[in-house]
């Protein structure tokens, strides 16, 4: 992989002053076939289609670094001037997916771009997994509530209550959590009426 590398699917933004480091970074991306643009001073946000960001770890870029490192759709590689105390502090707060010291050594670029790309993707997959599991937990709670309501109101046992929910979900071709939410919501409305 090293030596002949192509980032043809990469759409990168370099948010860095156009100094020696900046020029070096731009040339690296151009050689590796990535689409790349310079933006300095740093914007607060970048376009949705951007999937790689190189950003100077500088207080001026705080907003940009904060949004991009929390929404992990974009891989972020930081450039750090270790002499500046405020940059070091910012680094520990925003933690990019990889980081290179300034002045940038050309050989440091490739491995750090690769690592940032992979770290961001891994984080993304874990986030997908977590949101799936959270969704599962939410429906679990709803289904338990709906089951209890059905058992109480219809005088049926547990398997019958579950059966009812499953059959309704199947008939309407929606997830069972949706049916359960409807039962719980309706029950709330009805008990409000009684009060």
């Amino acid at each position, binding site marked *: 992989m090293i030596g002949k590398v192509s980032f043809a699917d990469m759409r990168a933004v370099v948010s860095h002053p156009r100094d020696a480091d900046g020029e070096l970074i731009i040339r690296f991306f151009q050689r590796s076939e990535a689409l790349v643009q310079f933006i300095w001073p740093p914007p607060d946000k970048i376009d949705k289609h951007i999937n790689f960001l190189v950003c100077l770890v500088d207080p001026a870029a705080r907003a940009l670094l904060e949004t991009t490192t929390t929404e992990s759709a974009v891989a972020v590689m930081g450039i750090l001037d270790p002499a500046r105390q405020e940059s070091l502090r910012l680094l520990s707060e925003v933690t990019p997916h990889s980081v290179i010291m300034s002045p940038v050594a050309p050989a440091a670029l490739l491995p750090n771009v690769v690592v940032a790309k992979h770290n961001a993707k*891994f984080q993304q*997959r874990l986030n997908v997994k977590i949101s799936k599991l959270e969704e599962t937990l939410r429906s679990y709670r709803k289904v338990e509530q709906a089951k209890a309501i059905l058992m109480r109101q219809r005088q049926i046992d547990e398997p019958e209550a579950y059966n009812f929910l*499953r059959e309704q979900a199947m008939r309407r071709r929606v997830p*069972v959590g949706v049916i359960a939410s409807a039962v719980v919501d309706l029950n709330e409305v009805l008990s409000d009426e009684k009060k």
Partner: protein
Amino acid sequence: MYEPWRVGVLFSQSGNTAVIEETQLRGTLLAIEEINGEGGVNDREVIPIIYDPASNCESFARLADRLLTEDGVSTVFGCYTSSSRKAVLPVFERRNGLLWYPTLYEGFEYSPNIIYTGAAPNQNSVELVDFLVKNYGTRFYLIGSDYIYPRESNRIIRELLRQRRGEVVGEHYLDLEARPSEFRLLMRDVANCSPNVIFSTVVGQATAFLYQAYAAAGFSSRFMPIASLTTSEAEVKLMGSDVACGHITAAPYFESVNTPGNASFVSRYKKRFGEDERTNLCVEAAYFQVRIFAKALAEANTMDPDILRPFVLGSEFDAPQGRITIDRDSSHTSLWTRLGRVNDRGEFEVIKESGQAVKPDPYLISH
């Protein structure tokens, strides 16, 4: 032909679960050979890289890593036991591979890097427990091999039984390497507890020892059958038809199922591997998952899991068990629910079946 598609294959050809994993390997190979015979996928041959993890979880993890790094493949067909799946899961998630897992398991898992093509508990256990409680009684004796799947599966069985006012009158786990004498000893305790059903989660070659010990103890399958989710045609062959007769298994597929595609599937399998060889639920899942992979690959034309996976999710296929669908939400598969009872020729007679594929509910949210 252009450069081939390379895929990894991880099924044990030695060790205590080889008896069933070898059949999964055969199902995988049959599908790959058929695909290549039909011209490959987009004119490119599918080449399997096959390793033998020898029923050892550490080997599974090591070989999975080798496949995804040194060999550079991203799609792997493999794993039987839940402990081997748990061992390779972090490897697939970290390296962004795609594991196709053709085995029933205990549920309660979701990984964006796994396609689950075996049954989840709502597709076998629920119907089986209902049937057993209705026809034999509520007193269950649980016997399992000592690892994750049996313990987790029995936790679910216990819950399903509680909902149906049943009880667990005994629960016992034996080592995967347990000897016949240990099973014979256990039969004394079974007799003392007088259950209505023995629920077995024993896997691998030890399965034969359980059923043989049962027969030797003089129990009758008419009054106290052994019920299982894992005893398939492969294990029946190992223990002998006379010993297996009358016992019950829940599975999406049996060799005897009467669907438009099954007769041809069984004869192709026998033609390839020998007249004595029999298909089973694991062969079938191992077979159809490669077929679904090839269909998705033809559309995606890349092995990159991020691109391939969306073509897999939601895809439908006429499998030997009937029409099935890979479920978009859960990465599991909509499968048929069937109950089979072994007859005196060692074949499973289907005694109950769902009218269509049942949507997977791996977290048993609605049970």
